[in-house]
C-alpha cells in the first residue's frame, strides 16, 4: 500500500503536520524525567514495526515535501552541499548504501537494479528513473553524494578517517540545528565540537571518537539528540539566522502549542566499505507541542526535563528566551504522577 506523502511546507505558511500514526512513532528522546549528556550510543539495528527504526534508513510521510524544501535551500545556497576532492569515492559508497536501504525498506517506492557497474534507480515518489555507471560521475546529473542526498531525508556528513581522527570532508546539510557545513568543512572531530558546553570536561568527545573510529562495516551505531525549534522549519542554519532567530521572540502563552516544536535527530554512524570513511546521517524529526501532548506521558516528562535543564544546556540549545512560557504551558499538563520507564507513549 505504501506511504501517503503529505503536501506541506517547512517555511512561509508552515503547513507541516504529523498524522496520528506519525505522532505515535515520533522518536521521543527522553527515557527518564531528566536529561544530561551521555555517550548514548547503541547498535543501529532494526526496531519494532511501526517505529522510526523499522528500517535502518527511515522514509516517512514527509519525504516528498522535505526533498522539495532541500531543493529550495540548495537553489539559494549551493554551499550547503560540499565534497572535498578526495571524498568522491565515499560519495559512491553513500549512494550505494542509501539506494540499497531505501529499496530494501520501501520496494513499492524505490527499485534498484544492478548489472555489474550498470545500475538503474527508480524513485517513484520523485518521478526519477535513471540508468548510470557506478563509479563514473559523468553518468549522473550531480556528484554521487549530491545525487542521492537530494533523494534521502536527513542531513549527511561524510567523515574521512585518518591520523586517528575524523574529518568533516563532505556533506549535504540543509536541515540543521544551527550549525554550518560551510564553516565546519575540513575540521576534525574536536574542532567541529568545540562550541558544545560541558561535554568536553566530561571527556565525552575523547570516548566518542574512540568509539566512532572503531565502527565496523556491517555494524552501524546510532544515538538520539534533540533541541527545540520555533515553527516547523527544517533549515535553521546560521546562514539563515536572520529568518528564524527572531521567531523565538514570537512565542506567547497562547501560541506555545502551535509554534514550539521538539526537534529530534536520529543520528547514525556507518563505516563505508570502499573509502573506509564514516557516514553520519542526521535525520531530523519535528513535532509541535499540541501534537506531542496528545501522549500524556510525554507531556509530563517533557515538562520535567525542560524545567530542570541546566542553564548552560538551555542556552546552547537556544531555549532561554521562551523557556518560561513553555514550562508554564507544560506544567498544566503535569499532574505530578509517575511516568513509566522507556521512551514510548503509554
Amino acid at each position, binding site marked *: 500500500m505504501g506511504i501517503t506523502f503529505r503536501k506541506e511546507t517547512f517555511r512561509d505558511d508552515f503547513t507541516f503536520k504529523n498524522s496520528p500514526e506519525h505522532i505515535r512513532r515520533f522518536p521521543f528522546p527522553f527515557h527518564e524525567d531528566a536529561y544530561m549528556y551521555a555517550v548514548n550510543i547503541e547498535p543501529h539495528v532494526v526496531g519494532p514495526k511501526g517505529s522510526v527504526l523499522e528500517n535502518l534508513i527511515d522514509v516517512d510521510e514527509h519525504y516528498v515535501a522535505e526533498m522539495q524544501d532541500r531543493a529550495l535551500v540548495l537553489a539559494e545556497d549551493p554551499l550547503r552541499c560540499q565534497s572535498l576532492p578526495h571524498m568522491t569515492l565515499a560519495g559512491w559508497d553513500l549512494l550505494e548504501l542509501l539506494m540499497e536501504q531505501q529499496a530494501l525498506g520501501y520496494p513499492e517506492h524505490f527499485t534498484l537494479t544492478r548489472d555489474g557497474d550498470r545500475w538503474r534507480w527508480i524513485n517513484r515518489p520523485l518521478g526519477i528513473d535513471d540508468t548510470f555507471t557506478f563509479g563514473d560521475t559523468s553518468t549522473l546529473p550531480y556528484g554521487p553524494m549530491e545525487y542521492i542526498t537530494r533523494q534521502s531525508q536527513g542531513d549527511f556528513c561524510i567523515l574521512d578517517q585518518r591520523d586517528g581522527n575524523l574529518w568533516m570532508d563532505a556533506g549535504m546539510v540543509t536541515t540543521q540545528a544551527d550549525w554550518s557545513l560551510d564553516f565546519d568543512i575540513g575540521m576534525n572531530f574536536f574542532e567541529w565540537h568545540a562550541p558544545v558546553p560541558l561535554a568536553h570536561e566530561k571527556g565525552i568527545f575523547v570516548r566518542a571518537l574512540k568509539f566512532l573510529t572503531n565502527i565496523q562495516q*556491517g555494524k552501524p551505531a546510532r544515538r538520539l539528540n534533540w533541541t527545540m525549534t520555533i515553527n516547523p522549519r527544517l533549515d535553521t542554519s546560521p546562514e539563515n539566522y536572520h529568518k528564524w532567530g527572531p521567531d523565538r521572540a514570537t512565542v506567547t502563552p497562547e501560541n506555545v502549542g502551535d509554534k514550539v516544536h521538539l526537534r529530534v535527530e536520529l543520528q547514525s554512524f556507518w563505516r563505508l566499505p570502499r573509502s573506509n570513511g564514516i557516514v553520519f546521517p542526521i535525520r531530523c524529526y519535528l513535532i509541535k507541542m499540541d501534537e506531542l501532548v496528545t501522549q500524556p506521558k510525554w507531556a509530563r516528562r517533557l515538562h520535567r526535563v525542560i524545567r530542570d535543564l541546566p542553564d548552560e544546556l538551555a542556552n546552547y540549545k537556544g531555549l532561554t528566551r521562551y523557556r518560561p512560557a513553555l514550562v508554564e504551558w507544560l506544567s498544566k499538563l503535569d499532574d505530578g504522577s509517575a511516568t513509566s520507564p522507556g521512551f514510548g507513549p503509554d
Partner: protein
Amino acid sequence: MSTGTTKLDVVVSDVVPVNDLVTRFHFRRRDGELLPTFSGGAHVVVEMRDGERTRLNPYSLMGSPLDTREYTISVRRDDVGRGGSLFMHRNVRPGLEMVVSYPVNLFSLDRRARKHLMLAGGIGITPFMAQTAQLAAEGGNFELHYTCRTASLGTYADVLRERYDRRVRLYHDDLDERIELDRLLSTQPLGTHLYVCGPAGMINWVRDRAASLGWPAETVHFEHFAAPQPGLPFDVTLAVSGKTIRVDEQQSLLEAIEAAGVDPPYLCRGGVCGQCETNVVSYDGKFIHNDHWLSEEDHRSGCKIMPCVSRFEGRSLVLER
C-alpha cells in the same frame, strides 16, 4: 558478545601454493552471495578450529576490492611461530568451512595523496596487492618498492611487474640490492604519502629516516602486524570474572582469557587497534610489552597491557577482566 566484528560463514574455494613459504587461500560465502566490499589495506580475522583450540589470526585481504566474489589471503609459513600459519598450511583444504570476520581497515590509503609511495618487505606485500589494484582501477598515482630475500621467494613479484611494469621496483637481498631510501624519500613530489609494511626493523628504519628527512608524521603510514610471540608460561588472575588462568608457551594472553570464557573486545589481534587494552590491578614481576598502541609512559607505568601480543614474567599478575 561485544567482541570483534560481524562474522562471515565461508568455504575454502581454493588453496594455491605460491612458493616454498607462502600459500594462498581463497574463500567464498557459503550461501553463494557476494562478500562485503572492502577497501585496500583491510584485513580479516580467520578463525581456526585446531582441536580443542580456537586460533584467531589476522590476514590482509590481497584480492582486488572490485571483486567480492571471493576473499584471498596469503599466509607465510612460520615454522617457529605459535602454529597458526602451520595450521593453515597443513589443515586447510578446499571445501573446508571456516569463519572469517568482516573486513577491518587499519592501514587505509590517504585519499588526499597526490602520489602513494609504497614500501613492502617480504609478506608485507599483501595489503599492497589490494591497494595497488584499487588505485590502478581509478587511475591513481603509485609507486611500489618491494624487498624480498630471493627472486624465488618474491611473493607476487612477477604478478606485480606484469600488472604495473615500471611502477614496481624489486630488490633482492641475496643479490645485495637495497632500497636507496634517503634518495627515494628526498626526491618525492609534494603531496606524496608513504606507506610501509614489512618486518619491524624495516618499518622502524623507514619511519626513522622519513622523520629525519622532514616528512610530516601524518604522511607516513605503516602496518605493523606484530604476531604474538611465544614465551614462558605464566599465571594470571582475572579480578572481574574471578578466574585464575594459565597462559601457555604458545598461547597469547588474549587467547588464554578467551579460552576461560571471558570475551574482551578485539579487532586486530596485533597490538595496533587498542580495543583489548586492559587495566592491571596489581603485579609482581616484569611485563614484556610487544604492542604499538600504548605509550612508553603507559608501558613504564605497569597499569596497562595489550593482551593480544604482550606477555608477563614473574610471580603474580591481576587484571581488570
